């Protein structure tokens, strides 16, 4: 943290001499502290998964979900400050509804990403505000097909084949790359149904048992099976995937 004490990290409207915005960089630190969030684009839909870390045994099961719906066909997984995620989700819903109102058609994932990105970017321009401590994975199926985007606290966004943010994103990314490479090499391309167990496996793999206590696996998809609507992955399918993921993890441990 070379920036500390230099005075260039006090306001988001002040650059450091080498052209960085430290407050924005600190915001990404908040993202890195969050449980991992993963998005995967398959040929027949998209799937979102998060590792919801449980900071207390007293929490209600299934509460404080990190995946939100922005429209019928678009889901959002947030990594970072939970409350920032709620705020951005709300803004996203308003943008999606406003697009429908103005154009009488569902917003595409790209346009919605662009709108949210512009909103986040505005919070990197003024001294009176702080940037969002949040990376947003946006996934959905629109008229252009299945689409996946990730918007960072700076407001920058990219389209992805697969993406991971949060704690342990590096490991998750290498696992995702294996899946994506297979398809690039023309071997197999995953269906969302197959991807459910892959995402579960990756999240279980990335989860650090030593550092973090319990977690709940949260997974949603948009695909033909869900009527091209953003919906939770069916409970039985999710349970099956979790069981497989746990088994694979134990198998891996025995090999070590």
């Amino acid at each position: 943290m070379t920036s500390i004490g230099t005075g260039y990290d006090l306001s988001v409207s002040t650059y450091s001499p080498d052209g960085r915005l430290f407050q924005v960089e600190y915001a990404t630190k908040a993202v890195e502290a969050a449980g991992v969030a993963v998005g995967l684009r398959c040929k027949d839909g998209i799937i979102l998964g998060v590792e919801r870390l449980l900071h207390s045994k007293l929490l209600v099961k299934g509460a404080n979900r990190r995946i939100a719906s922005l429209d019928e066909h678009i889901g959002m997984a947030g990594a970072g400050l939970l409350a920032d995620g709620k705020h951005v989700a709300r803004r996203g819903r308003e943008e999606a509804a406003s697009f429908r109102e103005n154009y009488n058609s569902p917003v595409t994932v790209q346009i919605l990403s662009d709108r949210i990105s512009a909103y986040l970017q505005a919070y990197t321009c003024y001294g009176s505000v702080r940037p969002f401590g949040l990376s947003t994975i946006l996934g959905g199926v629109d008229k252009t097909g299945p689409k996946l985007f990730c918007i960072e606290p700076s407001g920058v966004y990219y389209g992805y084949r697969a993406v991971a943010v949060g704690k342990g994103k590096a490991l998750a990314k290498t696992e995702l790359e294996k899946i994506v490479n297979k398809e690039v090499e023309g071997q197999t391309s995953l269906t969302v149904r197959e991807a459910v167990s892959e995402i579960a496996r990756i999240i279980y793999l990335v989860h650090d048992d030593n550092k973090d206590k319990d977690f709940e696996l949260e997974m949603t998809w948009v695909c033909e099976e869900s009527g091209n609507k953003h919906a939770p992955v069916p409970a039985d399918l999710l349970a099956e995937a979790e069981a497989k993921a746990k088994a694979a993890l134990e198998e891996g441990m025995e090999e070590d």
Partner: protein
Amino acid sequence: MWKQRSPGQSSFNDYNTFPLPQTQRVQPSYAHGPTFHTQQPLVTGTSVLGIKFDKGVMIAADNLASYGSLARFRDIQRLHPLGQHTLIGVAGDMSDYQWLQKELDALLREEDALALTDSHPSLSPKNIYQLLSNLFYARRSKMNPVWNAVLVGGWDKVKAESFLAYVDLLGTTYTAPTLATGFGAHLAQPLLREAYEAKAGIDGTGPLLTQEEAEKVLEDCMKVLFYRDARSINKFQIATITAEGSTISDSKSADTYWAFAEGLRGYGAQTQ
């Protein structure tokens, strides 16, 4: 630096990035002149009928939207589902109806989106009816009515019973096992009540009509309305709402009999 405004405070929306409700549009009042409220309906739909049966409720409406006495649009649907277990049938001004559709669909879409996160129960038919009642009464109280009469049909999942109720542009509300709007209140309601009470009795404690019987009496009523309501058309749909959800039939027509018209004297051109 301290003089800069935060996004929420700026007097104009520099980057189009501020929260939507705060977006300020430059609209000087003189640019618009006086505001006008709906004072009369223009393109209208006629009667809507509703009846409860043993497994749910049915709502019927024809496919015509009239422009005065002109049969202007002859293939419009006046039955509209709201979620899984609620459906409305709408008479009156069709532009107000389309506005209503848009508003309610947007509301339900937001409800669905929020339900994914907090898994709250979906709006019951009663919830939607209360919302409509409040909306219609609030608008009539602003002397800016939503010019419709609406039947709300539904299935209450919690009570496991059917729901049928009426609300109109005055905010008047009521519920009954058979309902009809407009001309239907004069021509069809007596027939519906007769059929309903024949089985259920006047206290409604007996058995209700079966689905087939209910559909039959609705088809009869739509025929009677077509014979005598000049703003109707012999092309209608029947919606059925049960515990399994709502379905809307394809458009159908009643078998009509006009041979007697040959014998009528006193109307139109005649040779003798």
